[in-house]
């Protein structure tokens, strides 16, 4: 998957490139797939 999905009410679709760039600009990352029980 190159971009995450976005949901508007019941409609789910892949983000557009522009939406994904805007999301990345907020500091969003994919994160680590494993989970470490620490506070964030």
């Amino acid at each position, binding site marked *: 998957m190159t971009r*995450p*999905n976005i*949901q508007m009410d019941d409609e789910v679709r892949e983000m557009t490139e522009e939406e994904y760039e805007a999301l990345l600009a907020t*500091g969003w990352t994919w994160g680590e797939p494993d989970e470490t*029980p620490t*506070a964030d």
Partner: protein
Amino acid sequence: MAIKTFTTGEVLTAADTNTYLANSGLVYVTSATIGTAVSSVTVSNCFSATYDHYRIIISGGVASTQNNLGLQLSGITGSVYNQLGYYQLWGSSTRFDYAGTSTNVIACDCSATAYIADVELKNPFASLRKFGNTMSQSTNNQYSMPFYINSTTSATGFTLTTGSGTLTGGTIIVYGYRKA
């Protein structure tokens, strides 16, 4: 409808029953089922003049990674979301304080195993400043964080956005508080 007191032997009519079902204290407004691998979910047209105050329950899903789920009201952008409180790891006596101003409030700490959030939201639709409280628990920790949104803009919906990673599954249910 005002609270009615029934007396012994009185007939409970269909009209009374239906009225009380429709006017219970916490009234279902709408819900959304969270899709697969979504980084944001928008619930639109859930706030109106019908109710002043709301409760939003987020539960049943999992996250691809531990993250803070942000809540932003529709049409209210900018750093007007003030929040403070604390969070604490299960099994730890150490409490971490939090205080911040951002473009959203932390609605939930999401984990890859399980999480739940209970968001109290006051006056989202009214042209008044908004207040509320988020209480969330995940398999990692618990959050308790009141908030104040410094805006009088009327909002009709909200968007949840992950701080990192995505969400899969679970539901978002919106309830309104009956006024009278």
